[in-house]
């Protein structure tokens, strides 16, 4: 799992390459925790290169979204591939989290 963080207009864009499963979920969680601890509560997860997400990954996203909200921020998600989009749709995450088709849309929203 490769995680890259960049800043864009005060929003921390976290890009993932690989898959988020039980093994990689702690790594993803740590990446978000580090940002939140540093006071960066406006987060955007870019899943353009994410091939798969498991329940552990969904749990991390949900926990991060809650924590970010508590810090007056939020977690947006963008660029989901077909498989991940379906997981989001069927599991209900598409309505729990703010999901956008492109990074630009997410940054401008």
């Amino acid at each position, binding site marked *: 799992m490769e995680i890259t963080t960049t800043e864009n207009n005060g929003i921390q864009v976290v890009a993932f390459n690989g898959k988020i499963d039980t093994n990689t979920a702690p790594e993803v969680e740590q990446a978000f925790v580090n940002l939140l601890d540093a006071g960066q509560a406006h987060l955007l997860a870019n899943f353009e290169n994410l091939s798969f997400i*498991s*329940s552990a990954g*969904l*749990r991390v996203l*949900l*926990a991060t979204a*809650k924590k970010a909200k508590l810090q007056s921020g939020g977690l947006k998600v963008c660029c989901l591939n077909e498989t991940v989009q*379906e*997981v989001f*749709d*069927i*599991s*209900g995450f*598409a*309505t*729990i989290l703010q999901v956008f088709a492109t990074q630009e849309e997410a940054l401008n929203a």
Partner: protein
Amino acid sequence: MLSRFSLPDSLPKGWDACLLIAILISITLVALGLVFPAIAESSLPLLYGVDLVCWADLLHKYAQRKGQGPGRYGQQLGLVSLLITAPWELIFPSSSLVEGALPLLWGLRLFRLVQLNAFLFNYEVISLQKPGLLRLIRLLINIAVVSHCLACGWLLLGYMDLDASWMNYAGLQLLASESQYIRSLYWTITTMTTVGYGDITPVLDREYLFASFVMLVGASFYAYIIGNIASLVGQLNASKAQYQQRAQTVTSYLHEQKVPSVLVNRVQAYYHNRWEKYRNFNEDDLLSDLPRSLALDIKTELAHRLIQDVSLFQHASLVIREHLLAALQFEFVDPGSVIARVGERNHKLVFVVEGTLDIKFQDEIVGHFGPGEYFGNHSLILDEPRTASVVAKSYCELMYLCRTDYEEIKILYPEFVDVMKKAMADNSEKMSDLVLLGVVL
């Protein structure tokens, strides 16, 4: 000629009841008219009215059957109805007939008893509600009508030779006509029921013959009544007896296999509750006789609560809803039944129609699913084993959608994913709480 008239597609409500009453009036008056000419004369307009009603019914049935063949009812009624509803008195005026022929033509209307039975039998067949009760009503109507006709026949024999007949010997010739009819009816019933007090007895040969005939009719009716009542009582209990037998077989087997009594008691309680709720009916078995579209309409009607309460159905289009209903499998479960187990990969969507389910996660109850809610979408889409168990807290009505059906619907109707998405939005808070706990269902 018929085509000139536009017959209504359906007769007015209550038409069948009118027809039944008309036929009963006709038989009663015709039988009395054979004995009392005054009644025959005064009731002629009424009888023609009844004839008209019967003609209207015959024409309507003809129009309905046109192009479909006569059908069973039509076959039974066609010729008989034509013969007995014809206004014979108008076709053959009394002057053109040999003496005695007119009463015979008049008496033809007594064959309405056949029409009456065909009508009642047909009603019994098409009306599936309380067939036993309808059969009993048919039986009672028949007994009443036949008794009346035989009483009139017996009275007629008495009038044929007042001085030498049974009426003279019974000392009834000076009584009023009503009383004579009542005595005659009394004799008919005592003879038919084989009571035979002996206060009124036949005197002439023809009376002996008639009395023998009445005895035979009575004996046949007796056999018919006893047989019917036995059959009705048998039918009333057949369903329950069959159910009890099945429940007993299962519990006996469990006892035989030394299954713990707690479990056996659960089985017995389950059977008891199932009987209370559904009797001995199995929906899938019952609907398997019907064409698919009709079965689907009935399933939709039966699942109205599910459609009303479950958001998935509310968001689904009619075709998706019908496909879902056709694929759903029903189950009635008792308290303690495990609906989903930790580690299980038997992926299916479970809908709660009635009752409450407990969500058990790491030996703790972390939530419930109630009517209208469903679960199974997470493990289904993520293809992960369940991390929690779901156990019935009360008697529950559940419906399952298995993975293969889910996949099929998704392929056939890609918009189904949007439906799921909308449905999940209605339940998102609860589901997110469960996901945060680590519950995958």
